[in-house]
């Protein structure tokens, strides 16, 4: 497998989109968190001296892991996009066939792509940890691992996004279609998620029937639902009003794992059992 990864490296190291998207993503994590950090410190705190919106800095050491994970989560589209490009390239150039002809089997081909999805998620997670540390210390607080589980949720979200991108790539094969479908599906799921959230609130209000936010039970939203911005006065008010359905984190977590398993099996079967 290490040898196969070395070959993947030969493929990507001269690929311009790899360098560009990779840099965008890493700088994006730093930039997006800096924007939030800066806004909180220089805009909100000045306009809201009473601390109604945010009593504590979102980047002090009781919150930095959670805030950085939440903010960086929006950028996970980029590694997904990169994976779609790299995998659909193989289909476009028909090198997926040539790789197998030259001497790997179908399992090798898909396994190394899944491994790349995993590595991309690990790199993203490590970047988030470094950025969380930078802003944590910049907030002049002392080190703590409070809410470090958010980084784990970020990793789960990263691998989920990467695997769904990989699945679209092996199902659709055409670069443009796969990228289009990835975005359309994400938009569709967010709309559906909003409708389901409304329904969940209605069930709770009308029938006193609380099964949690059903919007968080969809394939991409399951891992999204694990990450929130740290609670502040406003979110506390919403939670205390008891309008919002209960947040069953464990259900979302288990569903996210289940979906991940489905993406894994589906993409493997697609490559192993059909004509290439």
């Amino acid at each position: 497998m290490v040898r196969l990864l070395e070959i993947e490296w030969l493929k990507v190291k001269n690929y311009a989109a790899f360098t560009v998207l990779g840099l965008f993503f890493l700088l994006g994590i730093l930039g997006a968190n800096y924007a939030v950090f800066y806004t909180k410190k220089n805009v909100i705190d000045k306009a809201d001296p009473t601390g109604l919106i945010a009593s504590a800095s979102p980047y002090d050491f009781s919150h930095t892991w959670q805030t950085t994970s939440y903010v960086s989560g929006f950028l996970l589209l980029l590694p997904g996009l990169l994976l779609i490009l790299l995998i659909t390239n193989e289909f476009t150039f028909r090198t997926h066939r040539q790789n197998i002809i030259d001497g790997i089997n179908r399992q090798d081909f898909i396994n190394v792509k899944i491994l790349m999805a995993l590595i991309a998620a690990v790199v993203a997670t490590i970047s988030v940890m470094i950025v969380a540390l930078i802003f944590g210390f910049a907030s002049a607080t002392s080190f703590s691992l409070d809410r470090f589980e958010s980084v784990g949720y970020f990793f789960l979200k990263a691998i989920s996004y990467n695997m769904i991108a990989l699945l679209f790539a092996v199902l659709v094969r055409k670069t443009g279609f796969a990228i289009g479908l990835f975005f359309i599906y994400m938009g569709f799921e967010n709309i559906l998620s909003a409708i389901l959230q409304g329904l969940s609130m209605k069930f709770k209000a009308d029938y006193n029937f609380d099964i949690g936010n059903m919007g968080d039970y969809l394939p991409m939203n399951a891992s999204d639902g694990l990450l929130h911005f740290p609670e502040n006065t406003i979110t506390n008010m919403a939670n205390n009003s008891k309008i919002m359905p209960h947040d069953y984190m464990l259900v979302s977590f288990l569903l996210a794992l289940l979906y991940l398993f489905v993406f894994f099996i589906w993409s493997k079967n697609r490559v192993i059992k059909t004509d290439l």
Partner: protein
Amino acid sequence: MSILTIENLRKDYGRVQALRGVSFSVPGGCVFGILGPNGSGKTTLLGIIMDILKPTSGTYKLFDEVPDKTHRRRIGTFLETPNFYHYLSGEKNLAISAAYKQRGAEDIPRVLEMVNLTQRKDSRFSTYSLGMKQRLAIASCLLGDPDVLILDEPTNGLDPVGIAETRELIKKLRQQGKTIIMASHLLDEVEKVCTHVAILKKGELVATGNVDEILANEDIVEIGAMPNTRLEEVAKQMNGYSSMKLNDGHLQLFYPVGTANVENINRHFFEHDIVLNHLQLKKKSLESKFFELTN
């Protein structure tokens, strides 16, 4: 040892039957042509052997063993189109192929030289002409000096010089004792370079065997006279021909290749008081042979 044995291979695409139970075997050391018109199932067959396509039923063996990736590494294969990373140079593409084959990395300069691409080895693949792409694919097949080559229409898209060079190369490889399996729709090509042939037609095996036997050629001598009533009777007194038939008022005499002697035929009829007004030596065209076999 058989290099390749296929047994009752079938492939259906929905209602279309691309292969309908094909069986044959390729002995070591031969140049084996798979001949058939476009759409006869040649590429489908080779795709199955390379595990690119899944057969509907049937089995195949490579080197008399159940095939896996290690067998494919021992075969230089060019299937249908040159498949390379467009944004990488020719040389880097070959490095990737060699890495998958786990052989031939040190061989890259040699194979580039063999296909005259040394000067362009640092250019991106996307800048290559069709012929250069094709030659790079052949170079990739030669990496690590494999004992077996599978070439799918290797001269397709090459200019006449490229075609001649490729055929020369195949002959040279054969002299080195390599086994070559080659798909082609060009009968003339198969006849020039192959020792064995399998002929496919709409997914069915029409014939397989030695090229000399399957594609046996004949010379045809066409004669005519006025009146032509005694032609057949006098012709029967000659020997050396294999068969005769009346065609359009002319008599056709069939001879094994190179044995028809027009002068002797003319003299024979003259001595029997027949003056021929038509005497023509025809080589049977390969195309007509091809139609005969596949129609």
